[in-house]
C-alpha cells in the first residue's frame, strides 16, 4: 500500500457464510487511491465473494465496512455504484440482446428533453469510447452476436470508463489475447495515475506481478499474505496460495518444448476445406486417436466457430467432416453427440444449468445411458460423486445448486459431464480458463488419461500456455485460416505468438 495516504476503502474482520459454508473468515482488506491491488488464491478461496461484498452484491455479512473512513452498509449493487464502485464480474454479465451501444451505457443512456433515447449520440459516443480502448465494432450490432472475448472487452471498457473511484476486475484477462491484455494494462496504469483504486484478480501470476503494486493472497477464506509486488516472487505466491512448494506446478513455456513425432494411429476426425462466411476459410486437418491436437490463435480468429461446427451447433457454408471415415453433416448437437463428439465451450453460462444441482449438470449428457424411461437419481448421484471426487470439485456436494460453486469449480463441472462415458472426439475450448494452478494441473492429467484411453482430443485456446501444456501437435489459426502447423519440432510461447 502506498504510504501516507488515507485508504479509500477499508474492510475489517469480514466474515461471510453461505449456510454452513464459511466463504470468508475475518478478512481485513484496505485499498488506497492510485493503487492496483492484485488478488490471488485457489478456486473457491473467497476472492469473488469478497469483491461481491464490496460491490454491494452480497449484503449480509459481519465485520466493518468503511468508505473514506465512514462506516457504510450497502443495501444493493446500486448503492455501491453511487458510491463510485464498479465491477467486472467473473461471469460475463452483459445483456446479450441489447446493442453494443446500449451495453456501454447500460442504465444511463443519453436522453433528450422528452426522455427519448438519443440513439445517434449514444452510438457515436459508445463507438468513441470503445475505439479509445482499441475496440473496432459497430455500436449498433447485437452484443450476443459477438465472440465472447469481444463481449468481455466491451464490458471491461464500460466499467473502466464509468468514472468509478474503485474499479474491481474479477479475472478480466481470461478471454483476452496478449495485445488486448497489454492495452488493458496500459489503461489500468493511466487510471492509477488519475487516482483510481483498482482491484485485479487473476490466476495468471505473472500478470499480477507485472501490473499490481500490492498482492494479497487468499487461502480457504482467509487472507494469508499481503506484500508489495516488488518484494515477492511467483514461487512465493504459489506457495502461499496452496500452502506448499509450487514451483513444479507452473511452467513458464518461454523455453523451447519438443513436440513428439505425429501419431500414426487411426484418424478419428477429418475436416476438409471447411469454410464459414467471414469466419473460416478452407480449413483442413485431421485429429487422431490418442493425440491431443492444439489449435492456437488470437481471439476472433475463428476458433469459436470451428468448435461449434464440429459439434453441430453451426453449419458450415462449404467443406466436409468425417468421423472415423464416415462423412457427417450434423443436423443438431444431438446428432454430433450420437456420432461420438463432445464439446466443452468456453462460456460456463452457456453450458451449465445454474439453478440445478451439480449432479443434474453432470448427468444431463449421459441420461440416455443410465436410464431408458425412468430416471435413476441414486445412480446419477453416484456417478456425479465419482466425478466430483476425481476432479476435486469443492465443495464436494452433488446436491448443491451449481450457481453456488466458485467460477473455477463450475468449469470443472463442465468438463466432468463428458468423462463418465468418454466420447470418441473431445473438443475443449479454453479448458483451464479460470482455474487455479493446482486445478490446471489436474486438467492436464485428466486430458493425458483420456489420451491414453485412445480419445482424439482437440484443445482450442487463446492462451499459449494452455495449448503448450496439453498438445502433441499444434495448428495456428489466423483470421480464419490455418497458417502454421507445429509437429515434431521445438515450440515455445514466442514461436506461437510469432506465427499468430
Amino acid at each position: 500500500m502506498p504510504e501516507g495516504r488515507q485508504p479509500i476503502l477499508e474492510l475489517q474482520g469480514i466474515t461471510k457464510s453461505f449456510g454452513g459454508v464459511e466463504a470468508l473468515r475475518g478478512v481485513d482488506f484496505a485499498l488506497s487511491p492510485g493503487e492496483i491491488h492484485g488478488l490471488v488464491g485457489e478456486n473457491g478461496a473467497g476472492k469473488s465473494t469478497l469483491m461481491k461484498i464490496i460491490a454491494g452484491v452480497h449484503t449480509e455479512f459481519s465485520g466493518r465496512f468503511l468508505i473514506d473512513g465512514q462506516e457504510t452498509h450497502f443495501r444493493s449493487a446500486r448503492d455501491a455504484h453511487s458510491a463510485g464502485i464498479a465491477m467486472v464480474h467473473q461471469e460475463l454479465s452483459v445483456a446479450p440482446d441489447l446493442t453494443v451501444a446500449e451495453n456501454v451505457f447500460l442504465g444511463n443512456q443519453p436522453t433528450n428533453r422528452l426522455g427519448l433515447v438519443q440513439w445517434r449520440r449514444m452510438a457515436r459516443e459508445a463507438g468513441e469510447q470503445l475505439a479509445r480502448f482499441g475496440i473496432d465494432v459497430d455500436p449498433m450490432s447485437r452484443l450476443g452476436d459477438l465472440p465472447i472475448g469481444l463481449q468481455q472487452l466491451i464490458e471491461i471498457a464500460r466499467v473502466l470508463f464509468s468514472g468509478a473511484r474503485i474499479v474491481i476486475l474479477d479475472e478480466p484477462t481470461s478471454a483476452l489475447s496478449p495485445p488486448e491484455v497489454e492495452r488493458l494494462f496500459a489503461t489500468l496504469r493511466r487510471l492509477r495515475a488519475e487516482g483510481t483504486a483498482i482491484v485485479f484478480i487473476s490466476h495468471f501470476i505473472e500478470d499480477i506481478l507485472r501490473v499490481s503494486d500490492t498482492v494479497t493472497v487468499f487461502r480457504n477464506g482467509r487472507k494469508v499474505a499481503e506484500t508489495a509486488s516488488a518484494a515477492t516472487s511467483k514461487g512465493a505466491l504459489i506457495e502461499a496460495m496452496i500452502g506448499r512448494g509450487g514451483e513444479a506446478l507452473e511452467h513458464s513455456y518461454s523455453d523451447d518444448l519438443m513436440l513428439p513425432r505425429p501419431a500414426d494411429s487411426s484418424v478419428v476426425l477429418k475436416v476438409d476445406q471447411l469454410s464459414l462466411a467471414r469466419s473460416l476459410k478452407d480449413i483442413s486437418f485431421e485429429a487422431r486417436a490418442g493425440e491431443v491436437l492444439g489449435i492456437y490463435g488470437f481471439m476472433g480468429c475463428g476458433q469459436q466457430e470451428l468448435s461449434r461446427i464440429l459439434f453441430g451447433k453451426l453449419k458450415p457454408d462449404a467443406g466436409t467432416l468425417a468421423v472415423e471415415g464416415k462423412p457427417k453433416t450434423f443436423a443438431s448437437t444431438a446428432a454430433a453427440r450420437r456420432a461420438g463428439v463432445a464439446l466443452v465451450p468456453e462460456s460456463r453460462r452457456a453450458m451449465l444449468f445454474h439453478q440445478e444441482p451439480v449432479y443434474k449438470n453432470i448427468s444431463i449428457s449421459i441420461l440416455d445411458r443410465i436410464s431408458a424411461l425412468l430416471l435413476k437419481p441414486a445412480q446419477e448421484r453416484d456417478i456425479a460423486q465419482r466425478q466430483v471426487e476425481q476432479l476435486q470439485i469443492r465443495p464436494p456436494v452433488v446436491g448443491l445448486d451449481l450457481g453456488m460453486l466458485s467460477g473455477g469449480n463450475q468449469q470443472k463441472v463442465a468438463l466432468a459431464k463428458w468423462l463418465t462415458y468418454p466420447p470418441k472426439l473431445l473438443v475443449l475450448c479454453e479448458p483451464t480458463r479460470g482455474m487455479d494452478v493446482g486445478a490446471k494441473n489436474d486438467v492436464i492429467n485428466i486430458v493425458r488419461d483420456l489420451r491414453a484411453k485412445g480419445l482424439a482430443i482437440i484443445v482450442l485456446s487463446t492462451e499459449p500456455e494452455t495449448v503448450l501444456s496439453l498438445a502433441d501437435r499444434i495448428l495456428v489459426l489466423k483470421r480464419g485460416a490455418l497458417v502454421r502447423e507445429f509437429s515434431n519440432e521445438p515450440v515455445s510461447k514466442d514461436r506461437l505468438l510469432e506465427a499468430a
Partner: protein
Amino acid sequence: MASSETAPAARQRARGLAPFLRSQMRNIAPFLTLIFLSGFFALASPSFATLDNLGNILTQVSVTGVIAVGLTFVILCAEIDLSIASIANVTGIAVAYFTVQESYVNIPNIPLPGIAAILLAILLCAALGLVNALGLTVIGIPSFIMTLAMMQIAAGISALLVRGQIAYKVPDVITTLGSGSIGGIPWIVIVAAIMLLGGHLVLTYTRFGRYVYMVGGNREAAEYAGLNVKLILGAVMVISAVCSGIGGMLGVAHFGSAQQNEFDTYLLDSIAAVVVGGTSLFGGRGGIGNTIVGLFVLGVLNNGLDHVNIDSFLKILIRGLILLLALIINVYAQRLREKAAE
C-alpha cells in the same frame, strides 16, 4: 410441490428458515392465496364450505385441469400455447361430427363407430399439435405467434364442421366420462385426476420430464449437452394439443352439446391455473403440483364469487385483479429465489 424442488428444499432447510421460505415463495404464495380465498368465502357464505360444493368446485375445474396438464409442459419449456381452447373446441366438435346425431340436427356429418370417432378426433388434435410443433421448431416461428395462428385455424375447422349448428351426441364412453359418475364421484373428476397424476409422474420420474425442465431452465445449455431441443419442444406442443383435445371431448359431453366458441374462456383459465400455481413463465421451475394449486385457486374464486352477493359485473373485474396479483407474485418469486440462492 414439484419434486424437482424437494432436493434443494431439504438442503436449504438446514441453512435457516428465512432463506428457505424465500426460495420456496413460488410454492408457498399460491397456497396462501388458496387458504385465504377459501377462508374468506367460508366466512362470507354458509353455502360455500360444504361437501357438496367441494364436489361442484372439483367438477368445475376438471376440464381446465385436463387442458392445463399439457400447458404445464409447454410453459415449463418457456413457450406458450394459445391454441389450447380452439383445439379443445375442434376436437369436441370432431368427435360429435363422427357420431350419429338425432334427426333434427342438420349437419352433413359422417357417423362412424364410437371408437373410430374417438380415434379420429385424437388424431385431429395430435395433427394440429404437430403443425404447431413444426412451425415452432422447423420454421422457427415463435410459439406465441404460431399458436395464435393455430387458434384461428382450429376455429375455422370447427366452423366448417358444424356450420353454425349444434350437435348433441358423442360416443357413449365419452358421454359417461364427461357427465356420468361412479359411487357419487363424477367420472370427469377421476379422469382429470388421472391425467394430472400422469403428467406429474412423467415430469418428475422420466428422462423426458427431466429434459423438459432442463430445456426450460437453459435452452442453450441443453443444446450444448447434446439434447435434441427441437424434438423436446415439438413433443410438448403435441402433448399440449392432445391434452386439449381430450379436455374438449370431455367438455362437450359435460355440457351436453358441441358448438362453435364453446371453450373460449378456457384459454385464459388454463394459462391462469398454470401461472397462478407458481410455474415460472421463464421456464424450468414449477410443475403439475403447482398447477393443481392454481386450479383450486381459480375454482374457489369462480365458485366462491357465485356464493356471495355482489354485482355480477364487478365479479369479472375482481377476477382480473386477483389474477394480476398472482402474476406479480410469480415474477417476484423468481427474483426472491435468485436472492435466496445468493
